[in-house]
């Protein structure tokens, strides 16, 4: 059975707080660790340092070295031991330092984490969460700005989610930890400490369900669908479009696998147009999947093909060039223009 996501009623923490995404994640992890002492954190530099992004800040101090483990430097080891710990009854939360370093752990993710439940006809559960800071826009060197989430969406047995705002960050991480399936949790690293996004988080009442997408801005002319860091880009684009009298609906996917495209279908049936936005390269990606399914489900509603504004099919470029690589407000609006003019 899944561990409970407790509403916080202990009164120690104010019920509503203004938080960044980073702080919300930190508090969400803390709440999960308080709720269930089988929750442990594993990763490189997650202890004393609190992680290179400080998302686990203070947790080792308060929960000890057996619940927040500074592991040896090897990702297959982190995931592989987490699987074993889960078999033992723990609920490990692994931190991958940057998405570009998840690949040494790919085999354990696809061969064990994703398949153990299926292999054993459900007799073994592996409630492991793999936290992955992802995406670009931080001016970093190679391997620190990628968006590999589509690879995991293609692997059956995994669930993949991404948060885009502090409230979701706080609740989704707890729900992911409580989920009995392995969850890859993609965190929009460039927004971790973005003060603009700081918002009030109600820490008493859980948000909606984890595996559900959500309309975050209503509109009538064209639908934008995105997840993680691209949600903010889309919201900004919608605000800019509104000034020019164009009404864009924005959907935050939240769950990447399984996809919850119901709200997207419903929206496209109204607007007739869809632009899918993601920093990931487009080829064989989540945005491909969205396009494939929407053209099938909304065949007679579409007034233009589903278009995509994504990272290009190149490796992530040197970050002086990332403004070109990343789908920004202009490129999203340009793509909307193309959809409108079809």
């Amino acid at each position, binding site marked *: 059975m899944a561990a409970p996501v407790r509403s916080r009623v202990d009164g120690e923490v104010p019920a509503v707080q203004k938080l960044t995404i980073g702080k919300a994640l930190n508090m969400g992890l803390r709440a999960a660790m308080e709720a269930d002492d089988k929750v442990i954190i594993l990763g490189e530099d997650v202890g004393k340092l609190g992680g290179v992004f400080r998302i686990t800040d203070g947790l080792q101090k308060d929960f000890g070295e057996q619940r927040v483990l500074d*592991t040896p430097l090897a990702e297959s*080891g982190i995931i592989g031991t987490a699987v074993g*710990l889960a*078999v033992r009854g723990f609920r490990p939360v692994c931190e991958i330092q940057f998405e570009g370093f998840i690949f040494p752990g790919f085999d354990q993710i696809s061969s*064990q984490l994703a398949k153990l*439940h299926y292999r*054993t*006809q459900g007799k073994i559960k592996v409630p492991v969460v793999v936290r992955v800071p992802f995406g670009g826009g931080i001016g970093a060197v190679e391997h620190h700005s990628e968006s590999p989430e589509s690879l995991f969406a293609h692997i059956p*047995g995994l669930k993949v989610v991404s948060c885009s705002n502090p409230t979701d960050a706080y609740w989704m991480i707890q729900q992911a930890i409580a989920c*009995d399936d392995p969850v890859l949790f993609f965190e929009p690293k460039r927004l971790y400490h973005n003060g603009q996004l700081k918002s009030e988080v109600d820490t008493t009442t859980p948000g909606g369900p984890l595996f559900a997408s959500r309309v975050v801005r209503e509109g009538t002319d064209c639908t934008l669908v995105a997840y993680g860091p691209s949600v903010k880009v889309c919201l900004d684009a919608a605000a800019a479009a509104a000034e020019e009298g164009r009404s864009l609906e924005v959907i935050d996917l939240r769950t990447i696998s399984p996809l919850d495209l119901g709200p997207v279908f419903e929206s496209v049936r109204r607007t007739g147009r869809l632009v899918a936005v993601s920093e990931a390269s487009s080829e064989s990606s989540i945005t491909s999947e969205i396009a494939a399914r929407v053209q099938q489900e909304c065949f007679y509603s579409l007034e233009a093909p589903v278009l995509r504004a994504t990272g290009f099919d190149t490796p992530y470029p040197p970050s002086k060039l990332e403004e070109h690589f990343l789908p920004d407000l202009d490129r999203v609006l340009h793509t909307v223009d193309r959809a409108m003019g079809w």
Partner: protein
Amino acid sequence: MPSPEQWTHPEPGEGPAAQAAQPSREQVIAGLRNTDAGGAEVTQLLTPEGERIASPQFDRYISDIDPEALRGLYRDMVLVRRADREANAMQRQGQLGIWVPLLGQEAAQVGSGRALKPQDMAFPSYREHGVAYTRGVDFKELLGIFRCTDHGGWDFKAHGFHPYTIVIGNQVLNAAGYAMGQKFEGRVGNTDGDGNPSSTDEATIVYFGDGATSQGDVHEGFVWAAVYDAPLVFFCQNNQWAISEPTERQSRLPLYQRARGYGFPGIRVDGNDVLACLAVTRWALEECRHGNGPVLIEAFTYRMDAHTTTDDPTRYRLSEELEVWKHKDPIERVRVHLARNGYADQEWFDQIQSEADAFAADLREFCFNMPEPPPERVFANVYAEPSPVLDSQRDEFLSYLAGFVEAGER
């Protein structure tokens, strides 16, 4: 179901097999060299001739092995071998998709498996049918994997026997994590009321082959277990071959010496000596339970059959090698020992043989009657919690299938 033999043997007589290469001189020498390598370094308590060798270090770990217990180990090995041969034969008859024979490795598996306590956990690779047996997993429960009706389905927790792992090395890290969990839960290094080691302390054992030692995951398992003092016995069955590659392709040194680089004990045991395997594994498990952290055991043994039923060992090793190893058979030396010391007579041996035959017959009958899994099984248990996308794929497929039934086509 297409038989995996077709992988390599398209049309009899022609096809690639006709070009089969002979093993090189070096490989033959390497193979033969193995037969007496390990001599000085190897821990042996029962010689191939059935003589019991005293060991100041290890005798106390088998002080409870009286003639009856030894007969038990003999019986274990005979049953396991008989079942293995039966399964192998059933594969030849098309009843199994593939079989992974353990022939020759009975002592390594029964000896180490019998060293475990109920509360311990074993992480097998894919050849550990003998260990499975010692953990109380019915041989029948293994067949689903090889008949390809399931990926394994025994009660892992109840038996303390993890699922088979096919991807080489993966299970070593999983076992390290599990053993860390035992440690974190305070299940090592305890004492009872009298100050003796607690009988409820736990340890984990993980099985892998000589070839597996090259994988990064095995190394990382060594690193993790060492750093966290995890109660983990690394049990490497060096059966001299990783499919067609001799151990020389994986290491310059005897494999047990790998442990030297990590700071925990490594030991080579005669893997065809069930007593030595039992004693050494008990010692290693105790080290673990005391909280001293991991131990590496290299069981020096030999894969007497093919890698799997799809393999053709004549392409890479000479039958002479097998002949040499036959002299070191793990079962025969116990038989000689029991007989010579009057611990068992022919009647008893015959009785075990019939028991083994019955065991095999039962297995065969079970195998022939195994049901086909239903189509919806494709979609079952992908997730513990529902996935609407998958549910609709399933529903759509099942109604598509139902269409055939209605049309009388399937």
